[in-house]
Structure formats: C-alpha cells, structure tokens
C-alpha cells in the first residue's frame, strides 16, 4: 500500500501547537485508525498498533494515538508505520517520536531519574507494609487476652434497663 511521505518533525510540532489544546477531541469519538493506514503485513501492523497504544496524542486529553481522532495522531500513526516499514525496531520508533515530541507523549514513563520513584513506589510500599504487618502479627500472637475493660456508668445503666424489659 502507498505510504505518505514522512512529514518533517518541525511541521508536526507546528501542527500540534497550532491545534492547541484540542477542544475535547476524546469526546469527538469517531474512528481512529482509518482503513488506508493499515499496513499490508499483519505482523508489522500488530507491532504498529502495540506501539501506538503506548504513545499519547500530543494535543488530546489522555488518549493514545491509536484511539485518537486528532489529525496529528493520524500523522503520528503514519510515522510509526513508516519507521517500522523502514526496518526500525519498536524501541527505535518510540525513540524517534520521543526525540521530537518529548517524554510527554510516552504513556509509560521511562524508569530514569526521578521517575524511578514512581516505579519503585508500589513495591517499596508493599515491603514496608509487609514489615508492618509482620510486626503486628507477631504482637497479636504474644499478647494475651487482657481483662475486658470495665463498663462505664452509662453502660451499666443501659444493661439494667435492658434487664428490666
């Protein structure tokens, strides 16, 4: 199938800027990937789809380019397919796009620098929680059943009232 030429990145960025924060593109729910974009090779197309799902539409509110209907997403989808047809690996394609649009378009933030905190947060919290739970469980095993707390005057009164009924 015919592939359109790759647009110069400067043009893509200009396009992204001129469109500005799109007027709720997610809400204009139409079809994303158009029939003329689909690659003939199903393996390549599947890779393109997988990559597209990880890339954020630069002008939308939290859509990936695979779902997005914005013109810039279509251009990006075509770029992804162009790079793949040219023989790039998945990582190279993603790098190519991130180099031009910044890490904002990556839905899976790279585990570098401060982002390590994000990736480590869950497992670290689990370890911390496990430690706390283990300490708690040990205390619960040792501590004998204390004598029940003495009843307050109000409770005594309530019991007396219940007994009367």
């Amino acid at each position, binding site marked *: 199938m015919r592939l359109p030429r790759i647009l110069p990145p400067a043009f893509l960025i200009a396009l992204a800027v001129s469109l500005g924060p799109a007027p709720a593109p997610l809400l204009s729910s139409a079809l994303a990937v158009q029939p003329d974009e689909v690659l003939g090779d199903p393996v390549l197309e599947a890779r393109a789809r997988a990559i597209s799902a990880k890339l954020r539409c630069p002008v939308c509110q*939290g859509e990936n380019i695979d779902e997005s209907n914005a013109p810039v997403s279509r251009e990006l989808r075509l770029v992804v397919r162009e790079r793949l047809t040219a023989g790039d690996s998945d990582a190279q394609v993603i790098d190519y796009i991130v180099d031009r649009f910044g890490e904002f378009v990556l839905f899976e933030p790279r585990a570098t620098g401060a982002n390590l905190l994000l990736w480590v947060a869950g497992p670290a919290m689990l370890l911390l929680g496990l430690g706390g739970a283990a300490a708690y469980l040990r205390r619960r095993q040792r501590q004998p059943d204390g004598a029940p707390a003495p009843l307050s005057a109000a409770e005594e009164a309530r019991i007396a009232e219940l007994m009367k009924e």
Partner: protein
Amino acid sequence: MLAPMIVELGHFTLVLALMLAAVQVVVPFWGAARGWTGWMALAAPLATLQFAAIAISFAALTWAFVTSDFSVKLVFENSHTLKPMLYKVAGVWGNHEGSMLLWVLILSGFGASLHGFGSGLPLRLKAHVLSVQGLIGFAFLAFILLTSNPFLRLAEPPFDGQDMNPLLQDPGLAFHPPFLYLGYVGLSMAFSFAVAALIEGRVDAAWARWVRPWTLAAWVFLTIGIALGSWWAYYELGWGGFWFWDPVENASFMPWLLATALLHSAIVVEKREALKNWTILLAILAFGFSLIGTFLVRSGVITSVHAFANDPERGIFILGLLAFFVGGALTLYAARAGTMEAKGVFSTVSRESALVANNLLLAVAAFVVFTGTLWPLVAEMAFGRKLSVGAPFFDKAFTPFMLILAVILPLGAILPWKRARLARAARPLAGAVALALALAALAFALGTGRSAIAPVAAALGGWLVFGAMTDLWLRAGRRPTRLKRLPRADWGRAFAHGGLGIVMTGIGCLTAWNLEDIRVVKPGESYDLGGYSFRLASVDEVRGPNYVARRAEIAVTRDGAEVGTMLPEKRFYPVAGMPTTEAAILQGSFRDLYIALGDPQADGGYAVRTYVKPFANWIWAGALLMAFGGILSLSDRRYRIAAGARRPAVAAAAATPAE
C-alpha cells in the same frame, strides 16, 4: 402563580439547608460534650430537615430543567428544548453545579438515614456521627453557594439552550454519576463514624457492626457506578475499550479499593476486636480519596475527559476542604489512635492474617493508582518534567497485586479464625484447584498460544468461582440441605468473590482474544471475521429528536445461518456541533459482535470497524454479581435485627444463629 418563584424557592431552601447544617454541627456536639440528651436527640431530626430542604432545592432545579426555564443560567448552558425528557432530568447533574447539588443531596440523605435505621445506636455516638456529617454538609453547601450556585438567573432569557454534551446523552451515563456519588458520599458515613469513634476514644465490635452496613452500601453503589461508567465507555467511545486508567476513572477506583479493604478490616474488628486503628485509618482515607476524586474532577487539575469545570477558584476551595477534613481527621487520629487497644490474639496462619494480607494488597494497589495518577503533577512541579502516566504503566504496576490477591483469596476465605493449619485448611480446595487448572488448559488450547493472559485469567477466575463454591459447601457442613439455610452474608460473600473471578476471566479473555477488522466496505459487499460473515446491506440517513445520523444496516451470518442485523450509527448533534459514534453491539454470553461506522470514502464505500469481543459481558456481569453479593450481605438478618435492636425478643432470637 407560584411557578415563576420555584427556582427562588430552591435557592432559599439551599441557604436554609446551610443554616440547618450549622445547627446540626453545633447542637448535638455541644449536647454530647455536656451530656444533655435533649440536645443530642436533636441531631437526627435536624439531619432529616436538612435533607428535606436540599431535596426541595434539588426538585426546584429539576423543575427548571424539565420545563426548560432558560432564564436560569445553568439550564441555558446545559439543556435544550428538543432534548429527550430523560436527558433533561439527567442534565440536572450533567454539569458542575447540578452535580454538586446532587452530591450534598446524597450526603444529607445518608445523614437522614440514621434517623430511620439508627434507632439502636447509642445516643452519644449518633450525635457525634451526625455532627461530623453536618460539618461535611455545611462545608459543601457553602462551596455550592459561594462558588457554584446553580440558581443564578440570566437578565435576558435566551430563546433556547446550548444543549448538553451529546456523549453524555446516554442512558448508561445518565445513571453513572448518581451511583458513583452514592458510593463516594456513602463513605462519608464511615468517615463520620471513624471521627466519632476517635472523639469518644473507643472502637469495639458494636461500632464495627454499625459502620459495616453503610460501608457495604457505599461499596455496592460504587461498584455499580464504576461498572456503568465502564460499560458506557465500551459502547459509546467506539472502539470497545472498557477501562482507560483515565485520572477520573482512577479517582473512582481508589475509593473502591479502599472501601473494599475497609469492608474486610471491619470484619476483623467486629469478630475479633483487632485491627481497630487500621480500620479507623482506612475509613478516613476511603472518604479522603472520595474527596480527592471530587477535587480531581471538579478542579480539572488533571485535565481529562470528564473535567468539565476548569475553574481554579473552585479547585482551591475543594482543596481547602480536603485539607481540613482529611488533615483534621488524621490529626485527631494521631492524637487518639494510641488509646484503642486491640484484644484479639491470633496466629500467623489464620483468617485474621489472611484479611491483613487482603488489606495490605488492596491498600498498596490503591497507593500505586494514587502515585500514578498524581505523578505527572508532581514531576512537573518538582522536577520540571512534562510527562504522562497511562495504561501501560498501570497495567504493569497495578495488575500484580490483583493477581496475588486472587491467588490467596479462596484460601483466606475458608481459613478458620484465630489459629489454622494450612495443609488441613487447603485440602477441601483441591477440587477447585483441579477445575481451575482444567480451565486454564482449555483456554490454552482454544487460544493461539501467543499469550499467557487468557490461561492465567481462566485459572484465576475458575479458582475464585470454585473457591467461592467450596466456601459455601464448607459453611453448609457439606450438606446440600443446609445450603438454603445459610445466612445471607455467606451467600453474599460467595457471590462477591465469585463475581470477582468472573470479572477477571472476562478481562483476561477479552484482552487476549479480541479480534479487530478495519476496512472500507461498499453497500452490498461482504467480509468475514472470526467465523462470522458481515454484509453491508445499506446506509441511510435517519433523524433523531436532536440529531441527524447516518445508519448502516449490516446482516450477520455464521455458517449460512442468520445471527442478526446490526445498525451502527454516526450521529451529528447540530446544537452542540459534535459527532458521536453509536456502535452496534450484538451481545452474546461468550462473545459480543461490535461494529462502529466511520466516514464515507471517496470510492463510495464506508470505513467500518468490526470487532469480535469474547467474554466482554462477563466483565459487567461479574461486577453486577459482586454488587448483588453486597446487597445480599446487607439484607442479612444480623443487620435487619441490629436496626431493630430495641425489640429485645427479636434480638435474643437472633443471638443464637449468629456466629
């Protein structure tokens, strides 16, 4: 005569509700501090009055929408005379101001429910709970009146309105917000109970028994609300996704995770008088996350699909409320938590420990969703990096916790309290393990072998469902005749746990086996996908009440036999100037056929997207089963009895069969 004044009446009762809320904060609290029963007893009637005042206010706004009174600014901005009646009513909460009014209506409704259901509650506890509830009501009523008044008039009423976002004009979405709010706001009761317990410095089994029904009700509503939202996204957004890890979805998911944890930890407090501090903390955090959710949605701080209010003033106000309530409650917690002694003793292998593990996994999972949702904000403010956190991150960082949870759940559910022997407890589950593995093998054989997702999901789903059945079987003492007489709470638990298994199976199989086809089709042409044959019979223009649409008629056959006719539409709403995709879905127990119609092409054909989505319905069916399990538990006689504990004869009768 009165009709033109109805909107003003609603405005007036809203101010009245604010004042009633103020009285509801002060009088019962002061009464409790002084031990004046008369003042404490005023709490419940005040809560009911406040609810009545807000209900009148809400009715007035609904009236303005129903009669299309465009002199009210809110109605003008969000309605239109041609809009169908259902959406005129749903339009009341399809916008910021109205949805906040619904928020306080539900809040006051929960408070007033203590008037009816709280008759056995100690007077002092009730006074404290309603005082805290009144404070939340006061704060949010002030928020509405000061920053988001729905009753403002326009000096010159326009001829017609601007219509509501067409995507929101949908039955699934019409009821999505009320259910979510019932869930969010229902957690305010757990919060109020927690703060009241901190004020009084005691938490015991009775407290846990009181707090559980409200948490359970909130959880049921949240479950239904989230399922409705996900179902809506599935059929309305046009590509059949059901969960996007959108910040606003996360905002509803975090309270759900914590409410689930809270439900389970409250069981430990009720049965074993342990985990008290943790349960109080969870109750505070669960409502805290509801407030965070409200903040995220209302402030638009993390822009997403749902953020229809982008007003910093409102954002700061809600942030202030969040800081006040969560900060205040946590301060109180820090001061008082030490006074609450745990009593129960249990060994490392026991039901208690299993529930601790449940809480740990759910809380950490909620924490992961929280960090992922807020990370873009943190990264930009602290490190100057503009980045995104989306589905690929959450899929990797969140899913493992749910998998571990699913693995330990059936075992934990049948472990005895206090002290258990793992080998002996696990023995009855051998059948469930075998069936789960058989399902996994089946999924492996059916699949193309490229993905492990389906076999794993089938195994875990089977493990949960058969584990839940084993649980029931053991509870009934392995005697079928006793199954019928089991308490409803046991059935509720089995339904909820089994429902989770069905959700997991659905998600896994749909993810692994989803088939998609994108092509240009001309009328009269046919194509095949997944064993089905689709023929585009015709494409016509049709007209709806407030839209025009292009509608395709597609005949579906399988092996020559007719399966059905599908009518996907592409609509255009002229007033809002927006197109929407109305996908056609042919539902089935084991697969959905899903077609979305696209634009006409130069050669006279139409872009058509066709999907075969296996097990799609299982996701929502499972969620409904979970909610149904919650309702069953809620109707258990222990709670019905507890509600009427004043009648000693019934209470005595109930004491014997309860565990």
